[in-house]
């Protein structure tokens, strides 16, 4: 965790050091935690170029195509809508990450939220103004319940959260797939999908944008709430203490089990909400596979890891992975580069980020040798 690293750096600077003041300021600057993600992304871009060159693709064609695909004015509407979803999934991974736990079950939580919202939107006899709030809330509850199961399994039985969330995800996806194929699917449609949601269940767009809707505002509110919770609340502090030293936290009287279940429930609820938002946006249906296949979940995982779960960095890292994700399709259209390259780049960012410890390992070895 970067927190530890900062203290490391401080401890090191406190030692009598040979370095002159200017150099030490420079060293502190280049070790600033927000520069770590930047370095990881730059290195990933370089490694991506090497992979492209090996495959006979020019990075000078591919990368501009990627940026254009994501940031060209006519694509911005769609890009922002994807950014909203990736931000949400990043939040769903980041919250448990603050206490050192990994929620890899985002896909299951996402589809649970999606199918619940679709069912409410299609069948619930509610007054029109209530449909959207109830559908979003129900989606969040469904995702939250699925994720919360992993909490007691971890604290009572010691089954790691990373395993349970992931193992719960596949049956959850299978269940929604079954439901949409055989139970609440659109009759007479060859596709495994629900009918189109009625007007009342569709999220209103912002201005006259087609894809970007009030979900964006919702996610921004959630991000701000997460930031306040993380930096200003006692619970948020306890979560971070557990993240840097779980045994110390437990010894200090922090309710580990309560926090694990709580943070997972909220994380799952955010993922469920994202699922509900996808269903309530064009094409206003729950389509089997369509919530998972764009890879919002793992783009969110990568974004949260890159930000080390820090709320203030999340939007920035989510933006990076949004450009990769949306730009990937643009790159495929324009430069004929397989869209899977975006996944490769995401993975390289995460791996490079994890392996940054090589720098510290080398430094430690040099100190030992001196």
């Amino acid at each position, binding site marked *: 965790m970067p927190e530890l690293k900062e203290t490391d750096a401080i401890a090191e600077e406190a030692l009598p050091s040979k370095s002159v003041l200017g150099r030490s300021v420079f060293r502190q600057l280049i070790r600033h935690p927000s520069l770590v993600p930047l370095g990881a992304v730059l290195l990933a871009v370089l490694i991506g170029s090497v*992979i492209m060159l090996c*495959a*006979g693709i020019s990075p000078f064609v591919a990368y501009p195509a990627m940026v254009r695909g994501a940031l060209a004015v006519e694509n911005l509407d769609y890009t922002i809508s994807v950014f909203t979803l990736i931000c949400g999934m990043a939040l769903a991974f980041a919250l448990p990450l603050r206490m050192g736990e*990994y929620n*890899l079950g985002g896909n299951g939580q996402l589809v649970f939220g999606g199918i619940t919202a679709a069912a409410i939107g299609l069948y619930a006899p509610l007054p029109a103004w209530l449909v959207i709030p109830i559908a979003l809330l129900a989606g969040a509850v469904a995702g939250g319940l699925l994720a919360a199961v992993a909490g007691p*399994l971890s604290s*009572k*039985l*010691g*089954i*790691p959260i*990373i*395993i*349970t969330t*992931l*193992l*719960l995800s*596949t*049956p959850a996806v*299978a*269940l929604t*797939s*079954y439901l949409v*194929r*055989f139970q609440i699917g659109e009759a007479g449609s060859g596709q495994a999908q629900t009918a189109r949601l009625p007007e009342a269940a569709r999220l209103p767009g912002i201005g006259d944008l087609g894809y970007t809707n009030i979900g964006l505002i919702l996610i921004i509110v959630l991000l701000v709430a997460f930031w306040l919770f993380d930096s200003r609340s006692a619970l948020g502090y306890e979560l971070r203490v557990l993240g840097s030293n779980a*045994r110390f936290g437990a010894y200090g009287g922090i309710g580990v089990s309560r926090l694990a279940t709580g943070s997972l429930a909220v994380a799952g609820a955010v993922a469920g909400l994202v699922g509900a938002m996808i269903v309530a946006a064009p094409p206003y249906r729950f389509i089997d596979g369509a919530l998972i296949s764009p890879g919002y979940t*793992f783009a969110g*995982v*990568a974004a949260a*890891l890159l930000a080390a779960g820090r709320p203030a960095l999340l939007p920035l890292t989510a933006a990076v992975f949004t450009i990769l994700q949306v730009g990937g399709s643009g790159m495929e259209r324009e430069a004929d580069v*397989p869209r*899977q*390259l*975006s*996944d*490769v*780049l*995401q*993975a*390289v*960012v*995460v*791996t*490079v*980020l*994890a*392996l*940054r*410890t*090589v720098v*510290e*390992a080398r430094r430690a070895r040099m100190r030992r040798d001196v």
Partner: protein
Amino acid sequence: MDLFNWAFVAAVLLATAPVLYAALGGALCAQAGVFNIALEGQMLWGAFAAVAGSYYTGSAWLGVLIAVLSTALFAVVLAVGSARWKADPIVIAIGTNLFALGVTGFLIRVLFDVNGSFAPQGLAGLGTLTFLADVPILGEVFGRNSALVPLALLTAVAVAWWLGRTPAGLRLRGVGEHPEAVAALGLSVERYRIAAIIAAGALCGLAGAQLSLGNVSLFTENMTAGRGWIAVAAVMIAVNRPLRVAVACLGFGAAEAFGFRLQGIGAPQQLADAAPYVITLIVLVMARGRTAMFPARVAAEKTPADKDPAEKASAEKVDTQR
């Protein structure tokens, strides 16, 4: 319809083999005190490398060799990163799992110009053990599968023997149980861990090869579909013991084979998809209900692995009463 017969046993073993190879790798790592969740991605890479190797060389066994070697190489990132550079093995594993998923999808498009699934005409798959066909029961059970299926069971026995009966195996277990003691003997904890993770990579290569050249003769994107995670769960259910790992994996194999059978008689495919995961979870919960232990925290708790669960539970009760 006859649900249980020797052909069903063969189907169970077929479903078991890939997961068993990966789980044995996971067990080796867990014994060395490494929580390896990179099995899924390594298995997927192994499956791709086997198909690509078989396609280019025209020989399935060369494909297997390429899968084993390249997956071992793939595991070096995790091995050196976590054991030498002290990076977080979980984050590296998340990264390499994603990488395997992305890069295999990327490569089948760049190399073979297909999207999603690569099944070339005449791809050499692993042959079945036809010479066993006339042997009464063995023929039914092993005759229709590749040699890698019985080899998986033998590997489990071999790993159990190696861990339990050889000095090197003892040291590996020592690395997991009490790294300081092993270091005090003048052995390198780092090297044992690196070796265990790379060996697990090679086993995942076999797992992937059996999956893509034994169970079928093709590669599809994400064809492992979570089997590597089932393997991780199997290691936990079995508390890292190779023979128990084999039993746990057979349970998974039975669930998968049974799911296929149910699908054959008209049950929805989703039930077959979910069954192995649900059953694995239930077994994991039941197994943990008896012994609440966790490999990655074993080193911290220093609980002897052999301690009788009931005895431990009663000891804890005494503790709370006091």
